[in-house]
């Protein structure tokens, strides 16, 4: 079995331990706490006023452009980390290639900046 398989087992066991911890504590709390609901208590909390309008209002998602940029730069990161590990042995050519790669992305960022995509309208 490969080591990454054991890595995954470790992640899985940690998830189980965390779930068990949260679950057990919540269960113990359920045994000892009081329960006395009333309509006022169960209403959405809006600082004492009666809740008005929808609970999940239609909101303008202003940051979808940021999300697009995130995808681009996240992929960039996936390429950069292996390079960062090996770049001493890869030498100058790899350095120039990565510089070009980042340069193109920076041009993209500059373009987005000029276009006002980094502004919160």
């Amino acid at each position, binding site marked *: 079995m490969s080591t990454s398989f054991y890595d995954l*087992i470790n992640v899985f066991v940690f998830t189980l331990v965390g779930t068990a911890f949260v679950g057990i504590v919540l269960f113990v*709390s359920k045994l*000892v706490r009081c329960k006395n609901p009333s309509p006022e208590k169960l209403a959405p909390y809006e600082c004492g006023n009666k809740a008005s309008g929808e609970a*999940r209002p239609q909101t303008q*998602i202003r*940051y979808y452009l940021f*999300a697009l940029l995130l995808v681009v730069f996240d992929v960039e990161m996936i390429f950069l980390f292996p390079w960062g*590990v090996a770049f001493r042995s890869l030498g100058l050519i790899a350095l120039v290639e990565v510089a070009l790669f980042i340069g193109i992305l*920076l041009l993209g*960022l500059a373009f987005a900046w000029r276009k006002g995509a980094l502004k919160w309208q």
Partner: protein
Amino acid sequence: MNVDFTAGSLLVPAAWGLGFVLFSALNVMFLVWMERKVSADIQSRWGPMVRGYHGSMQLLADMVKLLIKEDILPAAADKKMFALAPFLVFIPALLALLVLPIGPGLIARDMGVGLVYYLAVPSLASIGIFVAGWSSGNKYSTLGGMRSAAQLISYEIPRSLSVLGVVMLAGTLSMMGIVNAQKSLWFIIPQILGFLVYYIASIAEVGRTPFDLPEGESELVNGYFTEYSGMRFSFFMMGEYVALLVACLMGAVLFLGGWRGPFGLLPQLGPVWLLLKAYALVYVAMVVRWTLPRYRIDQLLEISWKVLLPISLINVALTAAIVFVGGEWLRGLLG
């Protein structure tokens, strides 16, 4: 395929996991007390003083109170998601501890891709935050969840890029390897820019003032966990404090030499050095929280994309130049 899967392959990580659960529970209690004391100090108050030495037993009382508080499940909430969110917020913080080297040879699992794992996993908490905000059936919670998503998207990039310089110097992604590479020189010295970006971006990812827009109490009541009460509420608090501690622990590992004492002092102290360094970073984060006002959302996003991202790219370029020009000298320095 050669399968050497024994009970130990499950029990050893389970023991580490339990240890880390206890570790984080104890540290959260201490951190909450410390935060109250630091904030009191900054505002010329005493803070908790009544129960125990300087109020140190206050947290036990608070814990019992939270345990027996009524748990309110709002009528407008999406019940299943509402119950799921505390799990989703707490577990990622615990998962990150899997790759924390606490002493020479002491690590739950020294993954080959440890650093990338650490960069990826804590961000999952924001899914829990969004689920909490959305499922509560409250305007303020929904807005808090949305803001949290925008904030995470923006600070993920500089936080990851800032540690690329560390990877370039250490030549490995294994957390153990990164600490070993800092034998004679802590990375904070050649990577001071990277450290600053990492620290600022981490505070933003954890969602603390001045970047606490997802739960800004003066505008959103309590943000994404407005509707939570009792023990469920306390898991959000716990998740937040554990995330802060993990960010500082990892900052100590990546930039401050991990478990190594300054100038190789007292190597047998190992984990104590690591905790001391992490708590020094935590203390600075607390002082920052109680001295700076909150940023606006547009300022928040601009800091990330227009300041931190260019700085971290410059840092990568500088590191590459240093390693290429002063390669021999640096290799001698790094041992």
